[in-house]
């Protein structure tokens, strides 16, 4: 007789980094933990936020800063939330139109995606444009509380570009970015794969830098749960995290990349050609038609310790919210954020040792020690 499975409903947005949930559900990892993981595809992060808040979803694929924003009451339908586990590291890139790239290239922008060089080149391009009386460049992000927003802003600001004055930043759904670039509504964007590769394949854009270069091995999506659900279903959440961790290890296996790309490009998910999904999964990125670059950790799925959230991750996101005027710094806020990103639930579920030391947050311009 079949074992009685407990149903868990997970909301997700079809992106490459929904892979671990898809695999946990489809390859039997959830079932092994006694869970029937039911995935519900969504069309916006606002829907994910609303539907987890009203209890339609038990858990959700979320942008890493979202549980923080919700806990700090910075969004509509804000409820206290947790980010007990990371679902993916890296995976984003910044793409600009061919026209902007040719201007950047003339200012000596590095062709292999070095964030210092490309940022400086863009800075010069922007100054020149301003001097010539041209309108500001438009950049797209997927959500104000997202890794994309903070990576783009960090990269711009590091090169002396004011994200709120020198450029215009607007929000657009990820799958619409490539078209917006092609039609000139956007001059550039920061988005998760495969939507950078989409512009490269269409020969309308060029990848100028990427998340793994800006903030190596940083969280991009997390498992989001409301605090109420996590407290009421502690054992179930632990089982779910073990299942997802096992699924993430499966996704990390090189030999599974093709199968993973096939699944993700299929019906109900990305519904696109295989060559759209493969570059980020294999780490062989095409920055433009002619420039291929091997970036092994471009997008990382991994269970075990690597999927463990840390307070430092949460604090970095909080600092960006403060930096860009979304939140006001307070001791209470900081304590709350550390709770949202506490590694404890995950560590206990997987029986992992206490980390020996807090990992340091290092970005591309962090001075060496």
């Amino acid at each position, binding site marked *: 007789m079949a074992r009685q499975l407990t149903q868990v409903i997970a909301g997700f947005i079809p992106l490459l980094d929904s892979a671990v949930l898809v695999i946990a559900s489809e390859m039997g990892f959830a079932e092994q933990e006694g869970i029937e993981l039911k995935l519900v595809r969504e069309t916006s992060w606002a829907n994910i936020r609303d539907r987890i808040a009203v209890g339609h979803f038990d858990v959700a694929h979320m942008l890493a800063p979202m549980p923080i924003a919700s806990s700090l009451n910075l969004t509509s339908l804000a409820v206290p939330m947790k980010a007990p586990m990371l679902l993916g590291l890296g995976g984003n890139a910044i793409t600009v139109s061919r026209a902007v790239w040719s201007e950047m290239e003339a200012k000596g922008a590095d062709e292999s995606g070095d964030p210092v060089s490309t940022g400086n080149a863009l800075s010069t391009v922007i100054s020149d444009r301003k001097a010539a009386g041209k309108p500001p460049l438009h950049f797209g992000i997927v959500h104000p509380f997202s890794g994309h927003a903070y990576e783009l802003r960090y990269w711009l600001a590091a090169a002396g570009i004011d994200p709120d004055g020198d450029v215009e930043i607007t929000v657009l*759904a990820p799958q619409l970015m490539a078209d917006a670039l092609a039609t000139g509504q956007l001059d550039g964007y920061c988005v998760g794969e495969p939507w950078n590769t989409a512009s490269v394949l269409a020969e309308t854009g060029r990848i100028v830098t990427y998340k793994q270069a800006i903030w190596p091995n940083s969280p991009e999506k997390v498992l989001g749960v409301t605090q109420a659900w996590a407290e009421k279903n502690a054992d179930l959440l632990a089982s779910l995290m073990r299942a997802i961790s096992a699924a993430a290890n499966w996704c990390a296996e090189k030999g599974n990349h093709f199968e993973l790309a096939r699944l993700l490009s299929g019906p109900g998910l990305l519904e696109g050609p295989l060559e759209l999904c493969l570059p980020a999964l294999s780490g062989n990125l095409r920055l433009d038609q002619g420039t291929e670059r091997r970036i092994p950790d471009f997008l990382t799925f991994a269970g075990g310790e690597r999927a463990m959230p840390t307070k430092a991750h949460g604090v970095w996101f909080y600092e960006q919210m403060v930096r860009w005027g979304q939140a006001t710094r307070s001791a209470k806020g900081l304590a709350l954020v550390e709770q949202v990103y506490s590694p404890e639930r995950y560590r206990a579920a997987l029986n992992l040792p206490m980390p020996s030391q807090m990992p340091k947050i290092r970005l591309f311009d962090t001075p060496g020690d």
Partner: protein
Amino acid sequence: MSGGLSILVIDENKIRASIIEQGLHDAGHDHVILVHQMEGLVRQISEINPDVIVIDLENHNRDRLEHMFQVSRAVHRPIAMFVDRADSHSIDAAVDAGVSAYVVDGLKRERVKPILDMAISRFRAFSKLAEELEEARTELADRKTIDKAKGILMTSRGLSEQEAYDLLRRTAMNQNRKIIEVAQSLVIASGLLGA
């Protein structure tokens, strides 16, 4: 009493949008604008300058709109999601029905609540209709498949219509499957075998 509120309905589903529009008209709101096209939406909103925005949750532009309401210079007055903490029932109902509403900050909730309630009930009615239509469609398709399977059995085994149906039903019971599933396999198999 409409009190002159201007209401913008953003829904790519034209039929559903007109159903809402009709409902709003019936309730005395004569300043209702429908938008189906997402192109140039920001400019349109800025021109219309609505008091209330009703939007379907399937809309891919929801994140864009929310962000725009918060920061964009294109919107003259701050617009917030219609959330009334005290009324979690209507939040649930709205999300459940697949609709969300945004209002100009400071607008009295008594004025907006009936609009949201109306949108919720119309959205529900619409999904029920769509579901029924889908059911009717499947039912019809199922009946056709069963008829086809019966026909195959009648020709190949020389059975009467009743006998053919009994055979399908018996097979389904023995295999613990639905009649339609047995009929489908039979139709597919006979198609493959060129029967």
